[in-house]
């Protein structure tokens, strides 16, 4: 909690002979995060990248084939539902026995299909070329083979008259019209000019014989036939998918594992005789791995635990209570925490739904979103999507709770007055009520901002000790305290001058100097001390001072965005119910019924739109307050994901 899982850094060195045993043992345990060996550029060191194990090449070839078959059949292993798990030994045997025949079958089908597709395209093309000629009653042989005549064929804007002896066909039945002109060679140029003036565009004469209309029909027929054949082949491919999906995905998995194992040496450093690898294991697993490796190699392995020097190289795995773990997805969107810093997931997991509820506090919208997040869970397969839906379901529960407190149901009031602060605006039916307590709500939001930012700065002081060492750590911590002092100094001074509802009223305190009271002086001292605290680390930071005010005020969005959502809901209700449905209900007429139906439509559409807006506004603004206003105070992020060497079997069993 509040810290990522503890990691230990291991160096494993073994003679080359033991490498295979070591790799398969590490793979089996699935806890060792390999740190890839990268040779320093151009330095002639004794260490170099290792070579893959002998089986790598064959496994890779087979894997390429399996993936090609999967692709041809439209199988995506990520989206395949697990029906039965095949035993690994059986899959290995089937790669030898069954796979080649499947491969052949699919390759033949694909080859046939591409031939058919080529044929279909060819005929389509021919048909397209013939189409304009079908409008002219001439056989195709008649267009060619003259020595003394020139034949013009092409599109033209309009019919033209030609003043030399000629033969001409014109048709406006096809797109762009069609014209055929035959003239003696000596008139060729002037006819060409006449034609070009009318926007003539040459169409090449198809290399075929017979009546164009017949040929056209023949090609269309061929195309159709090719299409049916393609459909038949596709059906056969679908059949292959139906029969062999389980096997193919299992093969994919097995071979991927094989390749990963065989290529592991590429991530290791080698010398003449040995392999050396560095990596990370979770703290509680280190001893088990060490024992296991020593056992399988019979002691022919050297394992040393190394100091953790650079925390940016440590892989990070979250360690959070189960209700907070979906929130990790929100953390990953920003950046995974670094190994040595505080992991704020838990705080986000608690505060995010509260912010969401404050913004979208409405029983109706909350219920819709809750139903949505539960319903979509069936359709979303990826881990990340599911985690997001979990976060959304927590947020919508919070939204319902706040809806009860605000007494809101799709913008309308529930049977009780607001238990908390009212957000009911004076719109339509609700007009004349108490009105919204905007000022109070604003102050509440500012309070939340002040406290949230204070928390962030305190965490910043804690983190400062982890990021820096010695004198610099103290400096960084003091700078954070300085920011805190500056903020509170400003706040206390404001309190000393103005009485604000829901905030301490310090205006009545005794005056000390120059008309300033105790609080004002204390605030000023705090402010100056804070500024000195900031400046001692880095004076340039002082230009950021205005951000203190803007960040605190930014929390006002908790109210502002929420109120605009309420306003939309109430306006929708007023238009649909107050203006359309209710007046008609008093005396029902046929026209009135239509208006009522229309009103219901407006109501549904309006609230649908507002639900989407509420989800977007509530979610984005809440998370933004965390990312921009909260995290910038203490959080660095940039940790690497813990990705152990090994695999969770999905389609196979040992």
């Amino acid at each position, binding site marked *: 909690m509040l810290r990522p899982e503890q990691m230990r850094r291991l160096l494993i060195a073994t003679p080359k002979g033991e490498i295979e045993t070591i790799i398969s043992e590490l793979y089996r345990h699935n806890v060792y995060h390999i740190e890839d060996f990268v040779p320093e550029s151009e330095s002639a060191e004794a260490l170099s*990248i290792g070579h893959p194990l002998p089986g790598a090449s064959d496994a890779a070839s087979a894997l390429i084939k399996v*993936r*090609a078959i999967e692709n041809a059949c439209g199988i995506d292993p990520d989206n395949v539902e697990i029906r039965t798990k095949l035993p690994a030994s059986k899959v290995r045997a089937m790669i030898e026995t069954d796979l080649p025949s499947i491969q052949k079958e699919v390759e033949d089908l694909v080859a046939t299909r591409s031939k058919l597709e080529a044929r279909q395209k060819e005929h389509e093309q021919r048909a397209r070329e013939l189409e304009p000629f079908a409008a002219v009653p001439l056989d195709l042989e008649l267009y060619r083979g003259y020595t003394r005549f020139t034949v013009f064929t092409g599109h033209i804007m309009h019919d033209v008259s030609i003043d030399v002896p000629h033969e001409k066909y014109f048709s406006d039945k096809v797109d762009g019209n069609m014209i055929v002109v035959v003239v003696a060679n000596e008139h060729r140029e002037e006819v060409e000019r006449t034609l070009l003036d009318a926007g003539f565009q040459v169409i090449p004469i198809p290399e075929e014989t017979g009546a164009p209309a017949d040929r056209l029909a023949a090609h269309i027929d061929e195309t159709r036939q090719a299409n049916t054949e393609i459909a038949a082949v596709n059906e056969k491919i679908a059949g292959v998918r139906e029969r062999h999906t389980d096997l193919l995905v299992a093969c994919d998995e097995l071979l991927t594992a094989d390749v990963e194992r065989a290529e592991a040496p590429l991530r290791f450093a080698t010398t003449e005789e040995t392999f050396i690898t560095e990596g990370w294991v979770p703290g509680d697993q280190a001893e088990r791995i060490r024992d296991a490796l020593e056992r399988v190699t019979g002691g022919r392995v050297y394992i040393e635990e190394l100091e953790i020097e650079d925390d940016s190289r440590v892989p990070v795995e979250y360690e959070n209570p189960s209700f907070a773990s979906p929130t990790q997805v929100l953390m990953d969107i920003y950046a995974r925490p670094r190994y040595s810093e505080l992991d704020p997931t838990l705080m986000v997991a608690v505060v995010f739904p509260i912010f969401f509820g404050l913004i979208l506090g409405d029983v109706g919208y909350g219920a819709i979103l809750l139903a949505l997040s539960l319903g979509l869970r069936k359709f979303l397969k990826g881990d990340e999507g599911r985690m997001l839906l979990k976060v959304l379901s927590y947020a919508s529960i919070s939204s319902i709770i706040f809806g009860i407190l605000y007494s809101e149901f799709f913008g309308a009031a529930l049977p009780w007055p607001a238990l908390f602060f009212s957000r009911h605006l004076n719109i339509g039916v609700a007009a004349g009520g108490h009105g919204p307590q905007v000022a109070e709500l604003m102050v509440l939001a500012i309070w939340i901002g002040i406290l949230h930012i204070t928390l962030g700065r305190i965490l910043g002081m804690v983190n400062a000790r982890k990021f820096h060492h010695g004198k610099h750590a103290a400096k960084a911590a003091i700078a954070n305290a300085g920011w805190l002092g500056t903020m509170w100094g400003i706040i206390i001074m404001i309190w000393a001058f103005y009485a604000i509802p829901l905030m301490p009223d310090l205006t009545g305190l005794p005056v000390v100097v120059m008309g300033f009271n105790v609080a004002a002086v204390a605030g000023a001292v705090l402010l100056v001390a804070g500024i000195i605290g900031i400046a001692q680390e880095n004076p340039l930071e002082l230009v950021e001072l205005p951000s203190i005010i803007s960040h605190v005020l930014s929390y006002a969005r908790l109210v502002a965005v929420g109120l605009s959502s309420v306003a939309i809901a109430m306006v929708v209700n007023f238009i649909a119910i107050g203006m359309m449905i209710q007046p008609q209900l008093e005396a029902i007429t046929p026209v009135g019924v239509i208006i009522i139906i229309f009103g219901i439509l407006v109501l549904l559409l309006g609230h649908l739109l507002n639900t989407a807006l509420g989800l977007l506004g509530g979610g984005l603004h809440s998370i933004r307050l965390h990312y921009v206003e909260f995290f910038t105070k203490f959080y660095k992020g940039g940790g690497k994901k813990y990705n152990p060497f090994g695999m969770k079997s999905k389609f196979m069993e040992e």
Partner: protein
Amino acid sequence: MAGISSGLATNYIYACTRMRVRRSLLIPREDYLRMLNMSLPEITRFIGETNYRSEIDELGTSFSGINLVEEALSWNLAKEYQSILELVPGELKYFTASYLRRWDIQNVVTILRGKMQGMRPGKIKEVLIPAGKLDKIALDRLIAEESPERVAEALKGERFYPVIERELPRAMETGSFAHLENELYKGYYARLVADATEGVKGGEIFLKYIRLEIDIRNIQNLFRLRAGHIREDVRELMIPGGSFKVEELQRLSGLEDQDEFIDALKRQVKMTPLLNALEAIRGTTAIHEIEVALTRVQLDQMERMSKRYPFSILPVIVYLEEKKYEVANLRALARGKEAGLPGERLQGYLVM
């Protein structure tokens, strides 16, 4: 900042950001180092899990071994370039298209050579990269022609047709297309310079890139000629339009001694990275290492320029060039592995 508020600029920001992100997804140096120790199928599998995934998977049923890699690389490059051409806006599209013309030259020369040597159409098709203006269909049509003359005939109307018309008879006579190719590229660069200077917005930035490219190519050519002990008139082979005059280059090529040559060259250049690189290659004789070093300088320099003009044609060109070298690297790796060369030998040929 004034430009940023116009509607046009957001397109630039969009396209240039995409290019930068794509660039960050290219294969990093460590992965090349690991691939050097892999066998061909392992390399195929490896790139099949990166950007090349869809091509490797798609073609895996029809090809295998080295052909699979080569086809996948060509397809991917062509697809990538065409998609970029589609997504870049306005003036950037114009410049990108004129940059991509170089693939037309490469393809046409390949087809001419293939026809001359009587290669099978299928074989020629395998090595084409339809990334330029001549698309797959146009190239197929060219391949279907019987002779080099007919191919040239079919190219009537292309920008570079006059060059082909002029040079083809000589090439057919001598049996070497080197001169024709060189002339085509000279025409290509002249055209690039013309496109950049005809007043289209952002042209001056494009011109900076073209100058750099021409300079580096000329220097590379000079080194190559030295390695081949060709001391004759090189004016024909040099590309005009860079920061060196052709006469200067001719004078440089006359110098006998390698050290003297490098010193003379260093006096002419101002770019610090190039100076450093020239110093670093002083002792090297292997031409491929010199070329790789110079290419690296060009890419680094372009990268630096693209940071200075973040929303211009440069980020696009930087990505196009780096992608080109990535594909060239992978091709070299695959071919080298196929030929059984050890990883250490191949490393010298990669632009990392």
